[in-house]
């Protein structure tokens, strides 16, 4: 199996997963900050 093919398909597999994880992590961070703000408002 040519190395170029292997590297290309590693990229095809990992990059979309990386993007999905990055979006989910940024959303979780924003949600945590929202929760913290709401807690401080109630306090």
């Amino acid at each position: 199996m040519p190395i170029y093919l292997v590297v290309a398909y590693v990229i095809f597999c990992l990059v979309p997963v990386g993007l999905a994880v990055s979006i989910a992590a940024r959303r979780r961070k924003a949600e945590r900050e929202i929760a913290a703000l709401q807690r401080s408002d109630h306090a």
Partner: protein
Amino acid sequence: MRKKGLVNGVLAGLSILMFLVAFGMVFFYAPREATMGEVQRIFYFHVATAWVGFFGFFITFLGGAVYLATNDRRWDILAFSSAEIGLVFITMTLVTGMLWAKPAWGTYWTWEPRLTISAVQWLLYVAYIMLRGSVLSPEREARFAAVYGIAAFVTVPLSWFAIRWWRTIHPQIVSGEGMALTAKMTTTLLFSLATFTLMYVTLLRQRIQLEKTKDQLATLRLQHEQAGHSDL
């Protein structure tokens, strides 16, 4: 909220399943190409990522145009979200294209029309993403981004027609010049295109939801500041 989560989960599951099937088709169903050999298998996902990149930039163009006409933030969110995903997929296209070019052309990169336009396109959309965070007023940022997204879209038809208008060494897939596709190869390509389109839709929905959450956070922060809280 729960329904959105369920739809996201179903879309993500279906995307993964289709990706695995497409992956299997590339390696076990599509035949070995006679001239280029095994390395030709890069082509299936390379074309699919290029398609998603182009489609993503089209949605940015469309979102920008509708935003300018309506001033509705939802269209700006769509345009921005789509540009980010389009850029990631176009980056994959460029990198894997280079990996294919090395064994096929003997060089990773050459300044022929299609590749030159692709490089310019990549830089334009990187600048778009960078500019999104640099303008102070959110409304001015959205208007500027909409105009920029419309102007940058010109690179998509240019890239598409570059291999038809100018002398180029890049293979022409749709006309069949430079690569003869068998029925199994065409099926694999079409399935890969469908798979990556679904992945785009899945990622776009999640990216839009992220932007909406960020908007919610910005509103809350503003309310918090106006209420005189300074502990956060």
